[in-house]
Structures are given as C-alpha cells and as structure tokens.
C-alpha cells in the first residue's frame, strides 16, 4: 500500500518536455489568470508587424528587448527580377519594416542581405532556434521551430505588439498531446507524408488547445530538416505548437551555428537541452498513435489539409461519411477542386508545380526533388518553379549544382521567399488551374483566386512535374535505382 503511494508520488513528479519548458518561462502566475510567459525569441516579418509597431508609436512605447528580436522579409518579396517590386502596396509594407527595424533597433535580414529567407527557415539556419526556448512570430507556421524541442507558436499582431513592449505574453497553459509514430517509414515516404497522414487520420481540429510532442521510432529516425516539416504542419492539425524532444541529431545540427552557444558553453547547453526530454512516466492529456509502415506518399484532393489520401487511393465518396456537414463539406470541396467522387488520384492532371515554402524548401527537400527530375523534362503542359527557402539554401543548392538540374529539366529557379505558398507576390496560380505544391495549405484561393492546390512532398511534386499528373514516386525512384 505504502509502496504504491510512493510510486504514485513519483508519477506525479514526472513532467513532459512541454511542461518543463512552460514552467521555466512563467514570470507570474495567479489563480484565475493565464500565466505570464517570458518569450526568448521573437521573429518578425513584414505582413503581421506594421500595425504592432504603429501601436508602439501611438502609445509612445519602446521595444523592451530588441536583442531578442530578429526580422526578415519573406511574405511579399518578389522571387524574380530583384530588387524591383512592382506592387506599390507590397513595397510600402517592406519599406515600413525597414523603417521600423531601424527606429526600434531590431536586427533585420532585408531583401539584399545574404541571410534573408523565410523566417522559419532562417531561424534554425542561423542557430537562433534552440531547444528549451519559447519562440513566437506573427505567423502560424512558427510551430516549425518546435523541431528543436522548443515551444514555438504563432501569434496575432496585438500579441506581436505585446511581446515587443513587454517580452511576455499572457497564455493559458495548453493541454499536452503525444502523437506517437511507430515503426519505420517505407521507401519513398517522407516527413511530409507522415504529417499529412496524421492530419488526415485525426482531423484538422484534433490539436486545438494542445501542444503536441511527436514521438516514436519513425520520428527519431528523421533529420532536423524532416522534423521541421513535421512540426511546421502542427497548426494544420489545429495544435498550438508541436515539438520533438532534442537528441544527438538536434545537437549536431546546432553545433557551430552562428547564434548558437560556442565552445564549452555549447557543451553545457547541450546537456541542459537533453535534460528537457519528457520524463519516463509523464502523463499526456491525450495520446494518439499511427503506424508509419502504413503510410504511403500522400496527395490532398480537397480544400483543407485533412482532405488527402495515399497515392494508390481514390477520392472518397459521400457514402464514406455519416454526418450531413461532412457530406456537404466533401461535395463543396470537390466542386471547388473540379474533381469527382471516387476518382483515382493518379488520374488528376496538373498545370503547375511549386517546390518551396517553410514546409519544404530546405536543402534536403530540393535535393529530393532534384533526384527525381535529374535528366528528365518537365511535362509540356506544366509550369514548374523552385523557390529556395532562403538565400543560404539557394547558395548551398547552387554550390552542388541542383539549380542546373532543375533548369535543365525546365523548372524556373527563383529567389527565396514565401512565394506561391500564399501568393501574396506575383507567383499566383490562375483560376481553375491545378498546382502540385510542397506547401502547407490547400484552402480555397490560397494560391490565387479559384486556384486548386494539391499538397505533396517535394519528390511527389517533382514526379508530377515530369508526368503531368500525380504518380507514385516510388515507382519512378525504383526505376532509377534499378
């Protein structure tokens, strides 16, 4: 009896990595109030910050810790004919960020800076993103940084202003969720397919109110870049944030990065980071499980990221759903997408391919796509672009000749930015046309009014570019291997 009590006591003490990081950042707590949480890193871009800086000016407030802020331009920037910005409103927004960073003393990687890139790609690249940090940005894909074992989440502009002025946020402690990915992923299956399969299986609202820790053999086997792809799309499952506990892969990635600790300090930090991992016996509010061995290369066919299937599947029919809301959801999605119930995914012709975005525009993503297109030609009815996630990624890719592989195949090789993921710049898919996209959202109009988006991995996008329709990349890659 007393022995049992003792064990229970220990169980209560055990904490998840989520609780450990959260508790370390509480500045103030009081019953009936959210926690006042300290923010270690605030990333800033041009679209969600101007109103926040304007708010500071109007109230005569300053930025409390400019040294904990880092800004870049990504959403609006053109990806060709730099430095000309044709859109005067976009230009104004970009110049406003420049002016604000200067006025408030914030470091900025502007359009001409070698560090410029998508905010969620450059944070990790520069070593700003580290385990145990709280990281925010006025962008929902801030969850990307969770790959390092950080609590990273997107915030609105009012919260951007709040962090600028106080370096804190009032936050209710989210619930915890473990998503366990058991087994090993099969040949040709990528991190993108894992996360699309998770969202498809559990739904786009499953993570609401939770921070997710991804665990399991399949997750442990992923590189940092692949882990970023997984965590990036946590928000597509509704989660406040998603993270992966730090391990040797995390530490080796960070070693020597510009803003990571150096020398002995790094070794000490690494020890602290590893100690953040979830204690044995720690309880999550919810645990979900998926078997990696059942995951195929994925293609979305609908208008939210949960509407997707493995490549060998067919589009569902209304008979597959029970509720009227779901049935009508399927009907209106297929009407928008111009697809039929029960249609095989491989029968869908595409006109555009976009390889880019904070989900899939790191070097290994471009490498995976290049492996598929090497020596082949883009289908004559397809327009295909590659938009590296950052200047650094672009340079690394060029150093190993990936640009030439893409150009020879008929792809356009562009400058870095968010580009066609949300089509705020000139990279827009025309109405009624279809895009195989390595981005994260297939919402109506996301890539242009009336545009039809199919989310896929970089290798699946590359394979579709060559074939002109979706194909199982495993068949092509197998042929290459033979």
């Amino acid at each position, binding site marked *: 009896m007393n022995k049992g009590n003792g064990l229970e006591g220990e169980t209560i003490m055990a904490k998840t990595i989520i609780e450990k990081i959260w508790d370390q950042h509480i500045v103030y707590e009081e019953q009936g109030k959210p926690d006042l949480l300290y923010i270690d890193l605030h990333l800033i871009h041009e679209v969600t910050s101007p109103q926040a800086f304007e708010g500071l000016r109007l109230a005569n407030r300053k930025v409390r810790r400019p040294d904990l802020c880092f800004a870049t331009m990504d959403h609006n920037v053109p990806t060709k004919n730099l430095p000309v910005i044709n859109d005067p409103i976009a230009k104004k927004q970009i110049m406003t960020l420049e002016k604000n960073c200067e006025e408030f003393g914030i470091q900025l990687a502007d359009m001409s800076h070698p560090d410029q890139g998508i905010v969620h790609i450059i944070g990790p690249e520069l070593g700003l993103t580290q385990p145990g940090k709280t990281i925010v940005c006025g962008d929902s894909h801030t969850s990307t940084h969770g790959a390092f074992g950080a609590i990273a989440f997107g915030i609105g502009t009012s919260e951007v202003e709040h962090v600028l*002025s106080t370096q804190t946020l009032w936050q209710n402690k989210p619930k915890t969720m473990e998503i366990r990915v058991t087994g090993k992923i099969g040949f040709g299956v990528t991190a993108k397919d894992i996360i699309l399969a998770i969202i498809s299986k559990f739904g786009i609202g499953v993570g609401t109110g939770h921070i997710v820790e991804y665990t399991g053999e399949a997750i442990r086997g992923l590189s940092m870049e692949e882990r970023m792809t997984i965590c990036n799309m946590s928000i597509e499952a509704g989660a406040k944030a998603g993270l992966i506990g730090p391990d040797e892969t995390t530490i080796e990635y960070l070693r020597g990065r510009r803003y990571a600790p150096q020398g002995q300090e790094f070794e000490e930090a690494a020890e602290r980071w590893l100690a953040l991992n979830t204690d044995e016996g720690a309880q999550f509010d919810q645990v979900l499980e998926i078997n990696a061995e059942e995951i195929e290369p994925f293609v979305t066919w609908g208008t939210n990221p949960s509407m997707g299937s493995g490549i060998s599947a067919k589009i569902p029919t209304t008979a597959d759903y029970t509720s009227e809301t779901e049935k009508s959801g399927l009907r209106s999605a297929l009407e928008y997408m111009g697809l039929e119930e029960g249609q095989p995914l491989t029968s869908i012709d595409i006109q555009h391919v976009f390889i880019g975005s904070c989900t899939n525009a790191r070097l290994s993503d471009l490498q995976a796509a290049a492996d598929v297109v090497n020596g082949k030609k883009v289908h004559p009815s397809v327009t295909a672009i590659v938009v590296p996630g950052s200047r650094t990624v672009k340079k690394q890719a060029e150093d190993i000749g990936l640009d030439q592989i893409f150009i020879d195949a008929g792809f356009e090789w562009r400058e870095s930015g968010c580009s066609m993921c949300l089509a705020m710049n000139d990279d827009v898919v025309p109405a009624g046309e279809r895009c195989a996209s390595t981005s994260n959202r297939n919402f109506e109009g996301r890539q242009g009014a009336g545009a039809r988006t199919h989310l896929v991995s970089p290798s699946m996008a590359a394979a579709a570019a060559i074939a002109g329709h979706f194909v199982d990349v495993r068949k092509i890659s197998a042929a290459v291997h033979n």
Partner: protein
Amino acid sequence: MEPINKIVSVLTPLDKNNVDTDQIISKEFLKRIERTGFGEFLFYHWRFNADGSKNEDFVLNDPRFDGSTILVAHDNFGCGSSREHAPWAILDYGFRVVIAPSFADIFHNNCFKNGILPIKLTVAEVDEFLAKGKNAPYQLTVNLEEQTVSGEDGTVYSFDIDPYYKKMLLNGWDEISLTFQYEDQIAAYEKQRA
C-alpha cells in the same frame, strides 16, 4: 478597445465548418499597414463573383441580415493563418460576436484583443440557432456578464468564458497597460535568467 456586454441582433447564419482565415480575409488584402478598413474585404471571394458582381447566394449579401452583429458558424472557426486581419475584418464589417462549437486557438485569442466575443456553444445548440436563423431573421440577445445567449422564442443557453478575458472585454482594457503593472516581476525574471 470598445467594451462589450449586451448585444442584441439578428444572427447571420454561416452554415459552414472549418472556416479558415484565408476565407475570412484573403491574402491580397493583407498588405495594408493599418488596422482598419478590412471590412469591405471580409469573405471577399464568397461575397463576390470572379467578375466583381455580388454572389447573391452568399449569406452576407442577403439584405435580411443587414446590420447583424452576431455571426454563427460550425466547428473550428478561424483555423489556419494567424493573420489578425481576420478579426479586424469581422469587426470592421460590424460583427461583435461569433458563435461556434469550437474555434482555432490563434483566432480565438485574437478576438479578445479586439473586442470581439467568441462564444462556444454545443454542436446541438449551434445547429438549433442556425436552423432557426437560416430561413428567417432570428434575434439573439448575448449577455456577457451573465454568460448567456437567448433566442427570441425564449431559448436560453449559457456559455463558459475565461474569467480573465471576460473582464478584459467587459472593461475594454488594453492588455499591454495591464502587463506594465508586472514590470518588477519581468525584470526579476530577466535578472535571474541572465
């Protein structure tokens, strides 16, 4: 921020689930550097056809709901992008209350910062109000102090709300000024971590 307490209005029935912030405010309208003026672009691609004409089938173009300040929709309202332009557009258009069975986290937070009251009711309660308000104007009375939503036929449902956010909305407080009262704690935290 304008305080909010009692709101009486016909409801606007938005019979959809998973309404994402890309639909609420499309990316082509995110380039403004002000907080105001987004209302005319709310649900733009649902309100207007490709040629710019009004989509008469969309609920916001139904004159029976003109002047409504209460929007009612299905599950997971406001999912996707963190853009606060979404609540700015909703507020600027004239809505003060959004009722749904569930909201996406970031959108939910953003509402409180802008004097919009997001109310969670059960699926059955939302379905009932949508059914009643779909074919004929149906008036709701929202009382934040009492945490109730009442229909014109006497139906009353209560809702939960975080006490901290309730107070903020009732008083129209600016959260940053409130946080400045904790300056000592923030400074102490920074010192201890340095």
